[in-house]
């Protein structure tokens, strides 16, 4: 059809406009496919690894060997395997945890080199090896022995190798894990023995099976300690935070952006087809059939949507693997291969094609419902005053304000298009900054603990704590009817100077009462003044606490009670304690300790974490600026196109260029400001929902904190983008000649 020769010419004549639309489609389909591919692959890799390598369901230590293990395995249909653990100090700040090689549970996956075959061999966690300069063949001296690195290993229960299960961040510069032969432990002192358990019946509630199993151990008189369910084990669960976070934020977010782009482009084509109504009417009058005109007007949207979707998908496919690898490098999971989903590619291509095809079809069909005579008269809504315009009573404003407002109100669809575009770009931009801000608030402003070291003892201690230290006692609890949430209730000194809690206004909270951290209070839905009952994980008995205050802390999920009250409630001796907080390093024999936590490890881990965060925020800011620029350029160029006659007339009347530009190009300013303002509550609400979801998944509660500084930064970026789009469009205003107003017209 000769008409279709117009298609390429129209594209060429409005290069920037169509390039903008094209970019928006490419960006939409690209981000959608990458994000979907990323989360699907991560989930797949982690699930495959944990299932094939038999990740434990729980682990614990005991006061004595479980002698009837085979009987227990049969009775509870479980696999029980004992492994050894020893923390070897390579230097004052570097610890390597040696674990014995297992065969049934948490089976090590050798990801480079070879498996263990003899004594003196060691498999290292690859991030630790990289951070500390070890390669296959390197030798490490520790525990009075020399080990040769024969390979790198991934462990299902150390996917995120945290030193302590309650840590949040991991730093391979300070800590790592390694696997050695079980026999190597025979001449190492103070080795911990840990039992791993995995239930064979995956259909039943694992929690319920765990409770029964634990009850059985109690009946046997076995005292268990360090009981950790896999759902509460951050070493195994943090990776799921990334996956769930990816799914929660990345898939719906690009999907929403994608649909929004499609909607925006749909509205754009609608306007463009309406603008062509005279030509549509003329062709219709000349005898063109509806379907011929429909086909012709659908050509550009379909071409752009299909090509954009295709290019976006083609660019996305090779990006998935490096992105998965970058993401997974933060965790220790073997990567046998990356799967590319062709269903996602199909969605990436078909969504814009269907959406834009359908919207342009509906528009052209609705246009063709009008008679050719009507169409040839031009846009029938040109002179209509809509409800919005009437409601604002524009008469009271001065001419230029009235003109700008009217310009926006006259076209509700264009207004919606601009508003949605600016709001979504601002939300995206604020999103990144808010995540950064929340994390920053949680980690950098947390000054609850004033200690440098936390020592946990194997057995209950009595009497006074060593010099410079404060005694504490702690027990693991869960709310009634919800075993999924575990937390510590810690007994601390009533006059503790090491635990310094503050309320939301920054005022100190006394330690001679029961205080809950904000993170846990939010998670459990507890307010100050509530009386709550929790079940002690050790003895299964309920204990009731009256909450006096909420401490403004997000890192820790704890309830603090005075140690005397804690001991009394749990029936422990009055002057007993399980651990001490200390400002100095204490000389405690290692056989007495079950763990040491050093605060000096935090900064390294935080630097690494924030480095990644800042790159992510920068990327989000760039992407949202591009989206905003495209949208603003599209709307501004559309405004100019629809106002060519007015611009021409203004020129005839003697308006200066500056005045014309001000009236035409600045008419969107108030919509952009309003769109940005609206983006703040939208972002806060969605962030709250996402954080709530993440909190349940990984024991980490984040506050939604919007910093006024970042809001100003985002606003400045949006406004600069707007200025840039105006600059790009100014040339088009200059190009409108005065003769247009005199030549063009309808009867």
């Amino acid at each position, binding site marked *: 059809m000769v008409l279709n020769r117009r298609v390429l*010419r129209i594209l060429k004549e409005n290069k920037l406009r169509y390039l903008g639309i094209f970019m928006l489609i490419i960006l939409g389909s690209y981000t959608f496919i990458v994000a979907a591919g990323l989360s699907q692959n991560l989930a797949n890799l982690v699930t495959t690894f944990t299932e094939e390598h038999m990740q434990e369901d729980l682990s614990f230590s005991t006061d004595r060997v479980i002698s009837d293990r085979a009987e227990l395995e049969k009775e509870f249909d479980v696999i029980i395997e004992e492994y050894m653990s020893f923390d070897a100090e390579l230097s004052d700040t570097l610890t390597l945890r040696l674990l014995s090689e297992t065969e049934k549970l948490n089976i090590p996956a050798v990801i480079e080199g070879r498996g263990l075959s003899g004594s003196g061999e060691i498999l290292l966690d690859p991030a630790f090896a990289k951070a500390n300069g070890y390669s296959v063949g390197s030798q490490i001296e520790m525990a009075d022995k020399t080990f040769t690195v024969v390979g790198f290993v991934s462990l299902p229960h150390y996917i995120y190798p945290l030193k302590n299960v309650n840590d949040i961040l991991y730093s391979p510069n300070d800590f790592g894990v390694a696997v050695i032969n079980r026999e190597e432990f025979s001449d190492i002192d103070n080795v911990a023995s840990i039992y791993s358990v995995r239930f064979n019946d995956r259909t039943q509630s694992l929690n319920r099976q765990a409770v029964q199993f634990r009850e059985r151990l109690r009946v046997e008189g076995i005292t268990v300690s360090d009981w950790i369910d896999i759902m509460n084990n951050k070493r195994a669960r943090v990776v799921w935070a990334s996956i769930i976070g990816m799914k929660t934020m990345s898939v719906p977010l690009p999907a929403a952006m994608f649909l929004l782009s499609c909607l925006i482009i749909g509205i754009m084509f609608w306007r463009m087809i309406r603008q062509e109504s005279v030509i549509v009417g003329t062709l*219709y009058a*000349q005898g063109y059939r509806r379907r011929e005109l429909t086909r012709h007007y659908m050509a550009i949207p379909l071409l752009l949507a299909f090509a954009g979707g295709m290019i976006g998908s083609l660019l996305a496919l090779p990006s998935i693997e490096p992105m998965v690898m970058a993401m997974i490098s933060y965790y220790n999971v073997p990567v046998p291969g990356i799967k590319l989903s062709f269903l996602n590619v199909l969605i990436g291509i078909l969504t814009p094609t269907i959406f834009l095809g359908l919207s342009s079809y509906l528009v052209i069909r609705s246009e063709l419902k009008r008679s050719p005579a009507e169409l*040839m008269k031009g846009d029938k809504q040109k002179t209509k005053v809509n409800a919005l315009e009437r409601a604002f009573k524009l008469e009271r404003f001065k001419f230029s304000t009235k003109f700008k407002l009217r310009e926006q109100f006259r076209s509700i669809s264009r207004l919606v298009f601009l508003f949605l575009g600016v709001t979504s770009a601002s939300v995206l931009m604020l999103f990144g900054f808010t995540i950064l801000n929340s994390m920053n608030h949680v980690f950098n402003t947390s000054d609850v603990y004033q200690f440098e070291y936390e020592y946990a003892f194997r057995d209950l201690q009595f009497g006074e704590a060593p010099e410079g230290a404060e005694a504490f006692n702690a027990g693991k609890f869960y709310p009634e009817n919800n075993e999924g949430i575990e937390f510590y209730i810690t007994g601390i000194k009533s006059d503790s100077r090491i635990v310094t809690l503050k309320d939301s206004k920054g005022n100190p909270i006394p330690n001679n009462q029961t205080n809950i951290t904000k993170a846990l209070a939010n998670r459990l839905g507890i307010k100050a003044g509530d009386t709550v009952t929790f079940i002690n994980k050790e003895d299964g008995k309920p204990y009731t606490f009256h909450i006096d205050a909420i401490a403004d802390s997000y890192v820790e999920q704890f309830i603090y009670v005075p140690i005397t009250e804690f001991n009394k409630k749990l029936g422990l001796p009055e002057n007993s304690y399980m651990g001490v907080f200390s400002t100095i390093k204490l000389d405690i024999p290692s056989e007495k300790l079950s763990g040491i936590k050093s605060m000096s490890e935090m900064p390294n881990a935080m630097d690494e974490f924030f480095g990644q965060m800042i790159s992510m925020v920068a990327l989000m800011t760039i992407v949202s600026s591009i989206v905003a620029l495209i949208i603003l350029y599209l709307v501004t160029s559309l405004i100019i196109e629809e106002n060519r006659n007015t611009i021409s007339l203004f020129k005839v009347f003697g308006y200066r260029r500056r005045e014309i530009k001000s009236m035409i190009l600045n008419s969107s300013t108030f919509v952009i400001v309003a769109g940005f303002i609206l983006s703040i509550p939208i972002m806060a609400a969605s962030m709250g929902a996402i954080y709530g979801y993440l909190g349940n998944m990984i024991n980490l509660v984040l506050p939604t904190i919007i910093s006024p500084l970042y809001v100003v930064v985002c606003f400045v970026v949006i406004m600069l983008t707007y200025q840039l789009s105006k600059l790009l469009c100014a040339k088009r205003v200059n190009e409108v000649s005065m003769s247009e107003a005199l030549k063009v017209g309808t009867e």
Partner: protein
Amino acid sequence: MFIDVSNLKKSYTTGVIKTDVLKGIEMKLGKGEIGVILGPSGSGKSTLMNIIGGVDRGDSGKVIVDGIEVNKLNNDELTEYRREDIGFVFQFYNLVPNLTVGENIEVVSNISKSPLKIDEVLEAVEMLDKKHRFPRELSGGEQQRVSIARAIVKNPKLLLCDEPTGALDYQTSRSILKLLRQVNKKYGTTILMITHNGAIAAMANKVFRLRSGEVVDEVVNQVIVPAERIEW
């Protein structure tokens, strides 16, 4: 009669206001004749022409063109009627801006069953040398010539011209009128033309004066003045 309009009525409603645009029009024009409709703005000229051309519908009455009762055609049949039988020339040309002169004509020849040759009609309107130019590169008169070429390329039975000289200067207008006369003679095309310009009536076989939706006068010209001799 080639065109036979009887008791044609049409009204528009805007909000609560009903405007009777055509109040029982009677009009007859023979095959191969040129008819001119004269009248002030708002007299219903364009509406009458649109209904005859099948781009609009009358409320009641009969419109018969070459035996086809136009008012009884459904939308698809109206499209076919316009496609095969009617050529339009508009005051503001309505050319497709992104197509060349040749392609603007091809747009219509493409959908016709027995179109004339494109070069032949371009030759007839003296625009063959500008076949590859875009509308923006042409003067108003040249654009109107292209518009006429586009209308006649399908060899229509009826050529409807809505103020074909309305946007043109005197000399250009005369050349356009001459061209229309040539088309009428060469192809035997019946032409119905709307104009404000009373002087143009001299080149028509029949002149219809419209006022407030009614034909107030119908004149058959005994002496037809050649277009090039018309003056105003």
